[in-house]
């Protein structure tokens, strides 16, 4: 199968799964932003998604996407290291125009994944999973009260500030990952040429920023609330 056996096929899979995950994040981030304007509206969204069949199918789809994206990343990195040969260069000069993040996508990916597990524990565990297990992991009556959990996480004293900082670090890693990932995904699909090279890189930064910004706004909003600015 060329999607597994050819280098461009493997990159094609990385590109497609990556873009699908960006779309999910855009969707997720937009919904999060609602909590800043109205907690009731946000909880209505939590209610609407909750543990309904379509939300469960979506969750399974996402888990599959992340699994494919990550296992291909490991597979590609393993192959690429082998392709370098046994001896490494003693001196590695800085290559002009080569961004740090493009050479450290796996490291950034691990950062994103590590925080993702924490994030799942913070929210998914207490919300969707609580609903599925009829309250075995957290009180069921709070399962669709997303605003309560967001507030509880980010606004409870020093622990809340620490969580805000952790989430901001996570979002920065994600931004860097997407800054290379977004344009690279388009390039891998062949959607690039001499004229579009610069435009597509700018587009990549815009996509990365638009994806991460809504999440960051929510964290900063609650950080401000925590330290008592308003």
């Amino acid at each position, binding site marked *: 199968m060329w999607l597994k*056996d050819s280098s461009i096929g493997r990159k094609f899979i990385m590109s497609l799964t990556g873009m699908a995950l960006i779309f999910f994040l855009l969707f997720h981030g937009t919904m999060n932003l609602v909590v800043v304007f109205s907690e009731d509206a946000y909880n209505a969204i939590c209610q609407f998604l909750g543990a309904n069949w379509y939300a469960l199918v979506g969750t399974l789809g996402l888990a599959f996407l992340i699994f494919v994206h990550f296992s291909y990343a490991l597979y590609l990195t393993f192959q690429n290291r082998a392709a370098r040969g046994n001896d490494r260069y003693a001196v590695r000069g800085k290559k002009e125009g080569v961004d740090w993040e493009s050479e450290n996508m796996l490291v950034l990916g691990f950062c994103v994944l590590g925080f993702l597990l924490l994030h799942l524990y913070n929210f998914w565990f207490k919300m969707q999973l609580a609903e599925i297990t009829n309250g075995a992991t957290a009180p069921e009556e709070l399962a669709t009260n997303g605003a309560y959990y967001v507030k509880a996480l980010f606004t409870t004293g020093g622990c809340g500030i620490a969580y805000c900082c952790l989430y901001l670090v996570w979002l920065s890693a994600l931004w860097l990952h997407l800054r290379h990932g977004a344009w690279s995904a388009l390039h891998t699909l062949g959607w690039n040429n001499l004229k579009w090279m610069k435009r597509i890189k700018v587009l990549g930064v815009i996509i990365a920023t638009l994806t991460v910004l809504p999440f960051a706004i929510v964290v900063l909003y609650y950080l401000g609330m925590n330290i008592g600015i308003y």
Partner: protein
Amino acid sequence: MDQYIDIKVRVWRQAGPKAQGHFETYELKHVFQGASFLEMIDILNEQLVEQHKDPVTYDHDCREGICGMCSMYVNGHPHGPDSAITTCQLHMRKFHDGETITVEPWRSRAFPVIKDLMVDRGAYDKIMQAGGFVSVNTGGVPDANAIPIPKPVADEAMDAASCIGCGACAAACKNGSAMLFVAAKVSQLALLPQGKIEGAARAKAMVAKMDELGFGNCTNTGACAAECPKSVSLANIARLNREFLCAKFKD
């Protein structure tokens, strides 16, 4: 003004393909900055021969930047710290008095070291043999205007064709990927009407050969294009991706 400088050269010495390599440092006194880098290695080798030592083996041929034979990783850069040149076009004025210059061979699984700084780049020839040509019998030369080709397209094909197959792209790539080379070779033909006909088969065959020979997977870091002595553009890689994916979807 070019001056005479004293330098130390830290060279990778490896007796053969299977031997364990190591660095050896040599002192060179009174090297003229107007000398080319390869001339400096020649001076070093003369010194080594006088001392009854084994001279440093390295590849070179035209010494004017068009054959693609010279292949040294100098101070962390393929073809040295200057941009858009080959090692033979590098001059000692890029280095200063008292500097230690580190010289390594290309390091890639697909380019095994033969001896010292010389590597076997036959892998690139094998990729070319897999499809980097137009398979028609040569007959009489047709009139140049018989097939009109827009100037920008002709220019882009020519820029892709400027690739000299030196291997700097795979050597610079942290993934050991040969995508820029294959992309240039696919592009120079895919852009022109004569080459378009076999475009799909060519892209598939050359990529398959590249993967078979143990080159890595491209992750679009752009190190290849940054270090390419002929400034072959990264945009060619997008074209190769496009050609390959379209060919696979047509199947």
